[in-house]
């Protein structure tokens, strides 16, 4: 029996905690009803896996845990587990996220609910394994071949690591889709106080079925025309799926009409419910002349810089994305168009793409590549116009 065995802990911890982002992700998954975890160790995501190894098989309603032979196997086993009507997830970092792209495409096309947490570190390749970066924003959107959209949420503190992981499970179940949580190396080890709410205060969503086709999420009924009720293995109705183009029964159909309908529905179901995804944090933007756009750990530094600038009488604000994909384009246009914009990220230029594209104006940029968050002083100087 594992030394890790922590039988004395219940499935859902309660009340205030003081711990890391990775700990919060793992506990949120248990809270959400996780049944299957399949993963492969990689820094800085590994402590999520280790925490779940010590918890998932030993709590009431125990689940399945496996250290697989690689990340391709991990994501594919997560898909398999999900088809037994169980909540399943994996967590990884850069190189592992690359290996998972094949399975992510399969999950989107077969409409498999699952959660992938990518704790970002510096790339490309093996890159900076133990330092933070934000270089997988585009990969989260375009990493697998073919057109698809995976809802992608990005926390920036330990409480949000918990909250957005629950949101990710709910979105995945409600919309039958993989969902990404993008965190980073800083959040993985950063310890903060956070609160695990009472069970009755948190909505948990379970996917639809032929017997229960009309599920609700945040008070809204999810359309069973957009999100087809899911037949799972071993149940009364036959369950079949393929990575080839298919009709509503899941069987192969390569005809032009079927393919076009399917592709449009898959896109529609995400866009129709995107207003239910985590909303951006808008900090002091109403009267601001200059707004910093950022997400994740970088936004913590940016907020500090905005506060310092304000103390000097500069009207600065922060627009922090919590849902990256689908990009909140209408809101960002409405909130920010015409203002001076500075995009700050730990990447040579990924977040700046959608911001520029939707605002259709010049955008300034800090692309910080030093394996840490850009220091507040650097951002403040940029706000002040000092280079």
């Amino acid at each position, binding site marked *: 029996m594992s030394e890790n065995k922590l039988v004395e802990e219940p499935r859902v911890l309660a009340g205030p905690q003081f711990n890391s982002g990775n700990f919060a992700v793992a506990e949120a998954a248990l809270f959400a009803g996780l049944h299957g975890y399949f993963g492969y160790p990689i820094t800085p995501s590994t402590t999520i896996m280790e925490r779940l190894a010590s918890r998932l098989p030993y709590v009431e309603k125990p689940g399945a845990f496996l250290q697989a032979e690689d990340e391709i196997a991990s994501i594919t*086993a997560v898909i*398999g587990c999900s088809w*037994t009507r169980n909540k399943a997830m994996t967590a990884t970092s850069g190189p592992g996220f690359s290996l998972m792209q094949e399975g992510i495409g399969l999950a989107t096309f077969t409409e498999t609910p699952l959660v992938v947490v990518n704790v970002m570190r510096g790339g490309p390749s093996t890159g900076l394994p133990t330092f933070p970066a934000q270089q997988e924003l585009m990969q989260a959107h375009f990493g697998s071949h073919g057109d698809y959209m995976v809802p992608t949420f990005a926390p920036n503190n330990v409480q949000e690591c918990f909250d957005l992981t629950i949101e990710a499970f709910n979105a995945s179940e409600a919309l039958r889709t993989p969902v990404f949580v993008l965190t980073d190396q800083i959040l993985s080890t950063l310890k903060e106080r956070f609160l695990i709410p009472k069970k009755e205060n948190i909505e948990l969503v379970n996917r639809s079925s032929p017997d229960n086709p009309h599920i609700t999420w945040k008070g809204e009924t999810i359309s069973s025309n957009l999100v087809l009720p899911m037949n799972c293995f071993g149940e009364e109705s036959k369950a079949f799926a393929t990575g080839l183009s298919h009709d509503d029964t899941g069987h192969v159909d390569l005809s032009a009409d079927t393919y076009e309908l399917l592709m449009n529905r898959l896109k529609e179901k995400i866009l129709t419910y995107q207003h239910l995804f985590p909303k951006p944090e808008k900090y002091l933007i109403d009267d601001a002349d200059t707004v910093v756009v950022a997400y994740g750990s970088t936004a913590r530094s940016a907020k500090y810089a905005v506060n310092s600038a304000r103390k000097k009488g500069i009207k600065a604000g922060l627009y922090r994305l919590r849902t990256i994909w689908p990009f909140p384009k209408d809101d960002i246009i409405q909130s920010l168009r015409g203002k001076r914009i500075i995009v700050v990220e730990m990447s040579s230029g990924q977040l700046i793409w959608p911001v520029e594209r939707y605002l259709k104006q010049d955008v300034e940029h800090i692309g910080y590549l030093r394996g840490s968050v850009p220091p507040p002083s650097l951002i403040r100087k940029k706000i002040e116009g000092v280079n």
Partner: protein
Amino acid sequence: MVTIKFDLLGHNNEVDLTSRMLPHIWCSGCSLGTNVQSFIRGAISAGLNLDREVVMVSGIGCTGRASGYIEADGFHTTHGRAIAFATGVKLGNPNLEVVVFSGDGDLFAIGGNHFIHAARRKEDLTVICTNNSTYGLTGGQASPTTFENTYTPTTIEKNDKPFDLVNLALGAGAAFVARYTSAHYKILPRIIKEALQTKGMAFIDLISGCPAIYGKKNGYPTGEIMVQNFLESSVDIVPDDEGTYLLPENTAVHFDQGKGYTKIPVGIFRRGEKK
């Protein structure tokens, strides 16, 4: 060889096929038709309700399409990942009978790592490989079981030595290991039944043919000639206490370009604990 009284030979398989997906995509003379039939009969003789208890998982290839033709729950995964998917299903719901039905390229080239690890972990899966020694779907390119002196459009002069799947499975830790050919459709249901009832990984190297492409170039241009070739070159293994029948020189399949198969050792090489 054991004589079997197969009382289910009269079973009407049509109810176990997904009729709306027919006609299937397979060429006439291909082994896949009989392989699917043998599987269905084996599952029924094991007392399984295909509809409710069995999950058919396959990868990509001509063989991969089988999961869509069998009236059981199923999943047609990406190329090479059938075993990885099956792993998640079995851990998600251990009550399901999870069957991986795929090709030699799918299971042993791109998916080889998943196979050896699932065998090592003693996962309770039944893995049936339609081993036609070629990539049928993509046009007869070399697979890890393509024979040395045969023609493929992607290898020059000579192929590398093929995997002996029986020895590979034995070495990796499979609980049950058997080899037969698609021409053994009378005995196969009984072998498949035993595989399904074995605890841990059960593996069947189901020697098959692709008469349309690989066979045409290399010695068995039609299904009829192929079946003849299988039956004439199959040799029953003779288990002994010393285990000489398990030595690589006694388990390997032999093939000569122009003649087709020259020796196929068939039988059950390892038996495992029953469920």
